């Protein structure tokens, strides 16, 4: 059952095209074949995926993009959910976040030089945000941007950067003397070193990106420094987090279906194991969480698109899905028994994506702590 039950006809076309593409191009055997690849995916396949309009919601029509519904994150979620189902390794979420950021606050030059390539798949983008502290908030940004001459010098190390090895362009969030500042820089500028990390999700690459006194021109600054950048970073985090939620839901849906099929087929004590109450009750609980995850992922996407209650709804979605998602995949593995623990059975591909996404852009506690602040738990109400 799809994430959003209220898709328009145009959105359904996007959905079925994405599913058909991924079934053909990113079957589990194909995804496994990319395990050993340094990029983790095939750029040519990504270009064809992009040609289906996967990044288009975030890019204006005159630069090759366009949204079918006007709800950018809602549109993107449709494809991202399918990406989750397939455990597709392509750089959809990071490229989307970069495209959205440039489309919203880029200069005319940045927009025309990057957006057409990002939307047609010839340019891959990623966001270098978190650092070794593993925090996914502004306070975690310590990479220094020091003014020098007409430009800046970047020094520091980003970590947990998705698809940094494949990326042609980096969106870098840094700390200047008076607050956050962002840059859009080609990944091949001198002084940038990408060091791959080993990742739990075998169908996704993460890396550290070191900036050793990297000179960047003033033209590389994205938007206005100060308050505008704080808002932009907030939006980037919200877009990325909402999309990761949708992706997790797709993976959970597939994992749950696989497990349900298995429980219908697998016999023990002369009957299908799915007839035992000990498992049936777990399937009922998992369905509750899965349907709840779908409902809140849709609400989170809409809250970003409409910019209403975004911080609260995205936080609720991520904390809920990061909590219940792993519970579902762990139970699914357990219900499979020994076969679920084998390398050749595909369940662990989904489990790895869900567990990895649970921490990506902040885990349960990080989001609960942030929500407590958003809700004002420790702020006394103003007395009348």
């Amino acid at each position, binding site marked *: 059952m799809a994430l959003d*039950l209220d898709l328009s006809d145009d959105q359904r076309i996007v959905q079925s095209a994405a599913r058909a593409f991924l079934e053909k191009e990113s079957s589990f055997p194909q995804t496994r074949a990319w395990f050993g690849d340094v990029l983790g995916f095939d750029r040519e396949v990504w270009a064809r995926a992009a040609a289906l309009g996967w990044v288009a919601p975030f890019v204006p029509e005159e630069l090759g993009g366009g949204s079918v519904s006007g709800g950018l994150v809602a549109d993107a979620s449709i494809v991202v959910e399918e990406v989750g189902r397939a455990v597709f390794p392509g750089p959809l979420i990071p490229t989307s976040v970069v495209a959205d950021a440039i489309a919203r606050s880029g200069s005319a030059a940045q927009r025309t030089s990057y957006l057409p390539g990002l939307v047609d798949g010839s340019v891959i983008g990623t966001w270098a945000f978190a650092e070794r502290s593993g925090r996914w908030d502004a306070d975690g940004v310590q990479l220094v941007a020091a003014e020098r001459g007409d430009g800046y010098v970047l020094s520091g190390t980003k970590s947990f950067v998705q698809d940094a090895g494949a990326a042609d362009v980096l969106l870098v969030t840094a700390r200047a003397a008076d607050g956050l500042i962002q840059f859009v820089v080609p990944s091949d500028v001198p002084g940038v070193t990408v060091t791959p990390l080993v990742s739990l999700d075998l169908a996704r690459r993460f890396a550290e990106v070191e900036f050793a006194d990297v000179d960047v021109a003033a033209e590389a600054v994205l938007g206005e420094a100060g308050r505008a950048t704080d808002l932009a970073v907030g939006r980037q985090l919200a877009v990325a987090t909402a999309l990761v939620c949708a992706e997790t839901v797709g993976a959970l849906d597939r994992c749950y279906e696989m497990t349900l099929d298995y429980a219908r087929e697998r016999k023990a004590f002369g009957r299908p194991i799915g007839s*035992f*109450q000990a498992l049936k009750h777990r*399937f*009922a*609980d998992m369905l509750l969480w899965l*349907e709840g995850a779908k409902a809140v992922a849709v609400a989170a996407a809409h809250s970003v698109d409409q910019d209403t*209650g975004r911080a609260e709804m995205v936080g609720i979605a991520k904390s809920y899905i990061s909590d219940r998602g792993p519970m579902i995949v762990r139970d699914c593995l357990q219900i499979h028994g020994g076969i679920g623990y084998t390398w050749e059975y595909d369940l662990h591909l989904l489990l790895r994506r869900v567990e990895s996404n649970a921490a990506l852009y902040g885990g349960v506690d990080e989001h*609960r702590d942030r929500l407590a602040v958003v809700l004002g738990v*420790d702020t006394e109400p103003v007395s009348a």
Partner: protein
Amino acid sequence: MSTEALDTPVLQAYRLEVREWLSAHVQPLARAADGRLPPSAGSKDSPERVARARAQQAVLFDAGFAGISFPTEYGGAGLDIAHERVYSEEAAGYDVPTDVFAVSINILGRTLLEHGTEEQRLHHLPRILRGDEIWLQLLSEPSGGSDLAGLITRATRDGDGYVLTGQKTWSTGAQHADFSMCPARTSWDVPKHQGITMFIVDLRASGVAIRPIDQIDGGREFCEEFLDDVVVPADRVVGEVNGGWAIVRGLLEIEHEWVGRSGGVGNPTIDVDDLMAMLRRRGLAADVGARRKLVEIHALDTVHRLLAARIGKGVADGTLPSGFGGLLKLGNDHVIQRRAEAILAWSGSGAIAWPPGTDDETHVTDYLRSRRLSIAGGTSEIQRNNISERALGLPREPAFDRDVPFSQVPKN
């Protein structure tokens, strides 16, 4: 949480209409100094309250706000459940008698609408919606709750009608009710599901005795009923003779979907501001564990409301199988019990003993009351069976009584 942000233009207009009417015609509920609404649970068992509620309901009925999603030919407003949700949200702060008629309209009225004869519908539904008749269901029996189809109340054919004898239990507010839907066994020589007939039983009829049950929370909302040679005319059969199990299942499906959608029966409505106020009063606002628990409860609550909207709509328009309705009761019970447990934990030693009338007393009572949720209206275990069988199509467990004449089945 209001779903106002999700309103379509039609619902927006309806919301304004409801808002305007309520503010012009109904008293707002008095709020406490801290902005909280008074608890409504437990106050609905006085005869004066019920009489007043019937008068209030008649006003709502005349204005088109009773049975909003019922067809107009039976006295409803002919709108859908989204309108009903909008009305409920808008009416939350007003003195409307929703709780008194909730079961009567949303479970029994709805069941009669789906399964009653045209004559039964035309006669009873307007009276149910207007509050002239309060209905309830008599399902559980002392000999069994979860194994509902094993009921042993006996209905014997007698001339033009039937005579019912047996005992029912766990009905809510039966002392103020007028009619019930009551399944009874009409055949003992067939397997258990095939010998049940659904009757409309007049609770004022001769031979009906109703007694409240003393509960662990100190309340007496639940009753037990004794049926002693109660005469029921044949035109009060709902559905087919010996086909009553289908009506019971239909009723339960309606009940579970409604309980989950509406946030349950007589539950205290506590929003996140109330929870935050509690934490502050306990000096726990800076405690990381307590804060995280609060946020977790708020997230569960929010997700459940979104889920209720999703499933309510999905089941109504056929994009989701009807078996998904069972998730709503399961989820609702989960949220309310986890919340009551968290609040109990925040009371700390205050949950051991307290001066009379304090918040601690309320929290302990709410906790005790919350335990009923995963039992009443079908235990969570039965819900999970139903979800896994009806929504997911998983096979049933083997049973020893399925294909045996009921007279030969071992019973309590």
